[in-house]
């Protein structure tokens, strides 16, 4: 990474650590939610943007992770970290399953299948309300008790940082190369010797695990789970965040999520226009800045600095090497 982008990263890190002391409790809580969305958006970008598996079922795994952890903790008294780990494991298994059954599906078929899966899971949660609490919600023990969200902030930061590190490692490794090859042209990749089957399943298993982790964190933060976490609307929100940030880059998707969550919160005074603006932003980005706003910003930055060198290094830095 170039010198100034690592300086940039350091400043961000410092801001992130000092954040709870800079803002009031409301914005702190927004920050925790933003980090939740960042993990979800980044992992979705890894699956859909990077590995080319356009899944709309990502929120189902958030929901699955949250409910698995919640139910284990509330019904069997399992300690929360163990519950969350179980949630992650459950998502890894189910994610692999989905990856496996979807092997022969591409593009819109995959999207439709995963959307259906997500909705079916939501309906099951609503229907089996004796177990899950249904639409009335499942109250779960929060991770921390106390008047402030600060511990959540730091935990969220740790989870986000850790997830990002693992995802970046993945992306800069040979595995990342295989994912991209599969995305560009699956048949050619197979012909070139890439074990498509294994990597497609792996892509689902890994990204679903992150979603499940985020879900567990979310559940034990908000304290009450409802089936809407896995709704298509929530999926749309995450998709928008990743796309507006830049769906092909994990970091861009993460920044997109953080930025959009804060933006959407600040637009609260606009009431219902909030969602209209949001949808419009997504449409404009798709139409005119397909690679996401961050890539666009990077280009402007680069042009301002009049150095093609910056453009080259910058884009490589975004893509992670």
């Amino acid at each position, binding site marked *: 990474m170039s010198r100034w982008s690592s300086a940039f990263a350091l400043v961000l890190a410092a801001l992130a650590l000092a954040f709870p002391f800079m803002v009031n409790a409301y914005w702190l809580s927004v920050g925790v939610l933003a980090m939740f969305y960042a993990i979800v958006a980044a992992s979705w970008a890894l699956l*859909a943007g990077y590995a*080319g598996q*356009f899944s709309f079922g990502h929120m189902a795994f958030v929901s699955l992770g949250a409910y698995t952890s919640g139910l284990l903790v509330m019904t069997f008294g399992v300690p929360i970290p163990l519950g969350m780990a179980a949630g992650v494991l459950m998502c890894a298994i189910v994610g692999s399953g989905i990856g496996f*059954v979807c092997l*022969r*599906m*591409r*593009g*819109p*078929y995959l*999207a*439709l*299948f995963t*959307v*259906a*899966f997500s*909705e*079916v899971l939501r*309906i*099951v949660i*609503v*229907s089996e309300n004796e177990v899950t609490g249904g639409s009335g919600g499942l109250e779960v023990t929060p991770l921390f008790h106390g008047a402030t969200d600060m511990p959540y902030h730091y935990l969220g930061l740790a989870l986000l940082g850790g997830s990002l590190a693992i995802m970046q490692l993945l992306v800069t490794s040979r595995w990342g190369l295989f994912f991209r090859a599969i995305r560009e042209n699956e048949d050619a990749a197979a012909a070139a010797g890439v074990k498509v089957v294994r990597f497609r399943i792996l892509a689902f298993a890994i990204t679903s695990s992150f979603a499940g982790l985020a879900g567990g964190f979310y559940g034990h933060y908000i304290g009450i789970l409802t089936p809407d976490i896995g709704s*298509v*609307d929530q999926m*749309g929100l995450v*998709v*928008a965040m990743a*796309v507006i940030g830049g769906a092909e880059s994990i970091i861009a998707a993460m920044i997109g999520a953080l930025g959009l969550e804060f933006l959407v919160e600040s637009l609260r005074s606009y009431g*219902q*226009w*909030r*969602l*209209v603006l*949001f*949808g*419009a932003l*997504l*449409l404009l980005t*798709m*139409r005119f800045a*397909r690679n996401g706003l961050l890539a666009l910003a990077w280009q402007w930055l680069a042009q301002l600095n009049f150095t093609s060198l910056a453009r080259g290094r910058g884009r490589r830095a975004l893509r992670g090497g």
Partner: protein
Amino acid sequence: MTDYLLIQAFNGLVIGIIYAVIAAGLTVIFSILKIVNFAHGEVYMMGGYFAYFAIALAGVPPLPAVLVAMALSFALSVLVERTLLTPLYSPTTERKGDYGILVTFGISIFLRALALIIYGPYPLRPPSFWPGVAVVGGLVMAWDRVFAGGAGIAMLIGLVWFMNRTSWGEALNAVSQSRESAAIVGINDQRFYMLAFGLGGALAGGAGALVGPIYSLSPSMGLLPDTQAFAIVILGGMGSVAGSILAGLMIGVLESMFVALFPDPSRSLTYAQAFSLLVLMLVLLIRPTGLFGRAHVAME
């Protein structure tokens, strides 16, 4: 018992006709533009509201209001196509399939939020096409449903006639089979994409106008039909209008029978919603081309 099942089946058939109209529109769009239109349910919703306001503000009688709704839905769809979908035809756009999904998804969010602001939150109900109930033997059905079924059949017949008997329709068919070959023969692409998207939207809007008196209108009414339409299109086979029609009828009847026969009353009405989704998943797993789909449906 057979009487009861027959009544349920007939009821499901009428609902299935509406499903078929929506699904047929989706299929037309998919055949020619090669994208799955996630905003289809929202055009259906807008069609319902167009009809309502045509009646309430312009005094248009209910039946012509359906036609007005279809025309306005056509216009809305063309507008969307021209502003947002043109990158689909450009060779520089990568992964067109993903683009189509994302853009139509964005449109659905946008339209739904906009509808909430413009139309307000209260459920609106346009006046009946024909008030009262039809009674034939043991079968009881609201005239509105009978009318919707009949009008739906008319729309489907119109669509099939258009696709097979007019030069425009045949050109659409040609484009759907192979864009390149159609271009070679001189069929100008862009106008046909407009036509296809507009036609699909008109069908969805028409369906929305027909069900307004039956289900009442609300800005989020397009969500459920959206997923059902996908299931039907997949079952019938993407790219086959005949398949969508048949699949629509099947799903309509099967859903009714599901509720009629499912033993556990505490779950029948919640899992009924999952029915079409499970069908979709099963078909994709076992026989992705559906009943009549063409095997070579590709994206670029």
